[in-house]
């Protein structure tokens, strides 16, 4: 019974691991193939099944004039937009979440829960609903096709995630901790900055992770709100496609674009395993 259990456990772990890793391995080998190796029957092992070459990678950084796409600038654009928008969203979101968790707001029938729901409702709508208003809005303030415009839009999209996660997190931090800080002699701002915020680092990390992921992977708004001046990575990668699908360069760009998220995942995982995310009180 026990042996069967262990066998099944490892069996499913292995199956799942293969399921997760196989696409990466596929993308990795494909990125080193040429047209012949991709279309001339199934091949797996470099140097044995096919002769690896760097053509798929070269087009990513070669100048556009020679048929490449040059993803370096879009890559840094994406990094800049995602990080800036995430940072601002986390700051604004955390402040609003703390207020929503600790103070009572009332405007007619609108109360704290309704305000929190309003934030979340921004993410319930299909993005297409927001596309035209955003387009008109950015065009009216002359921010279409600019990094600033994208950052503004991304803050609107990411802040609800931060508010949502942080309200929930702050609600789980007992009020007594704020009250103790007041009794110990902090004013409410110091209590927030010195006591509540350091205790909320786990929540901040989770919220930050979600903001970065959702900001990084967005294609839709980056596609609609930019044209020629500014381009983000997902849009540029789509531009790689042509009448003959270049599997090798698509694979290479997929690996490059997923790399920052893998780094984020590793950092967060480190932090998780250090036990810093365990319950703050009691």
């Amino acid at each position, binding site marked *: 019974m026990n042996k069967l259990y262990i066998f099944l456990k490892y069996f499913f772990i292995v199956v799942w691991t293969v399921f997760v890793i196989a696409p990466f391995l596929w993308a990795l080998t494909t990125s080193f193939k040429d047209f012949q190796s991709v279309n001339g029957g199934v091949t797996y092992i470099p140097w044995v099944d096919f002769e690896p070459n760097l053509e798929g990678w070269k087009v990513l950084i070669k100048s556009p004039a020679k048929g490449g796409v040059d993803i370096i600038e879009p890559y840094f654009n994406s990094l800049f937009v995602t990080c800036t928008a995430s940072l601002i969203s986390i700051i604004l979101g955390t402040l609003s979440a703390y207020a929503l968790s600790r103070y009572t707001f009332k405007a007619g029938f609108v109360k704290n829960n309704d305000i929190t729901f309003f934030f979340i409702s921004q993410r319930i709508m299909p993005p297409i609903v927001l596309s035209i208003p955003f387009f008109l809005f950015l065009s009216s303030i002359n921010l279409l096709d600019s990094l600033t415009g994208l950052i503004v839009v991304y803050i609107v999209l990411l802040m609800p995630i931060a508010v949502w996660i942080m309200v929930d997190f702050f609600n789980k931090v*007992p009020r*007594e901790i704020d*009250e*103790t800080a*007041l*009794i*110990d002699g902090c004013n409410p701002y110091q209590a927030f900055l010195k006591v509540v915020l*350091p205790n909320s680092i786990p929540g901040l990390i989770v919220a930050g992770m979600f903001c970065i992921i959702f900001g990084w992977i967005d294609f839709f708004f980056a596609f609609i709100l930019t044209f020629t001046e500014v381009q983000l990575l997902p849009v540029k990668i789509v531009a790689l496609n042509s009448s003959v699908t270049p599997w090798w360069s698509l694979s290479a760009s997929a690996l490059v674009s997923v790399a920052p998220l893998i780094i984020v995942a590793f950092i967060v995982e480190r932090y998780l395993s250090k036990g810093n995310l365990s319950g703050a*009180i009691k």
Partner: protein
Amino acid sequence: MAKIDLSNISHSYNPNDPNPVFALNPFSMTWENGNRYAILGPSGCGKTTMLNIVSGLVRPSAGRILFDDKDVTDLKTEDRNIAQVFQFPVIYNTMTVYENLAFPLKCRDFSKSKTDERVNSVAETLNLKSFLNSPARKLTADQKQLISLGRGLVREDVAAVLMDEPLTVIDPDLKFRLRRNLKEINEQYKTTLVYVTHDQNEAMTFADNIIVMSEGEVVQTGSPKELFERPNTTFVGYFIGSPAMNLFESEVSSNDSVKINNNLIKTRTNLSNIKTKNIKLGIRSEFIKIAQNQNENLINVNVEKVEDLGNYKLITAKMGNFTIKSKVTRETEIPSQNVKLHIPAEKCCVYEDNKLI
């Protein structure tokens, strides 16, 4: 260190409602500097509200609070110089034990050497010395509560240290030692300590003044002896003491005696001004003994059971519909039939409408 006056304080959590519910009914009280007080009452009787009003976490709906005759009703918590310890440990997770204990001093700009001295002294008292450099979150629940307590005690000049059932999570052995430590701290530094509890033993052993509360009302304030021997109301008689005070429905028969189940019981109370029929006689089970050679205040009872509770025996007896409990020494011989119990007149409390006459 301060004398704390609560003057006509009352509090409602829905003061704007047409029918506000009062968590605390109007009361006035003075806490003298350097005394130990216990606020005792069942859950939900307003004990915590009272503490929060003193610390400034709650602003009372009416009334004033004075620290050393200075009105602090509108002063913010952080400006009141008061310490409060909650029922469950509250620690600053990201700090070490030392930083936790030093935090109240750091917020008030104490010098490094003074902080060191105070933190070490408190850590010594609370047995936290060997943990000073460990991260606070790594400690056990009762050690964490010691940190909370330590943060309350680290400032010598606080107006008072308010403790809201602080020893709930601490095991009995340590509890006993800590209560003694708190007493020592109080005697050494003359810090006013206010201790909220629903456990009468805790209140009795800790405080020199006990404030008994029930349903938002301060029912009686007094020393443990006063509360035990002369409870102001039947509630106090029932709530304090184990077993609870014996209470019998009775009729007035003369100016100083009542009748229970046709037994005449003399009291030391003047009963000439009684207006109602709702009269109860209260007597502690500690004072009821098996009759030896007395010839008055005797009642005949049927003994139902005798429990040996280690250091004493508890007799449960019946007299008509009344149940009587009596605590006697272990050596006492209890006859099986025709038991006569003696009720000493000087220990009788007579209650009219549940209030002591």
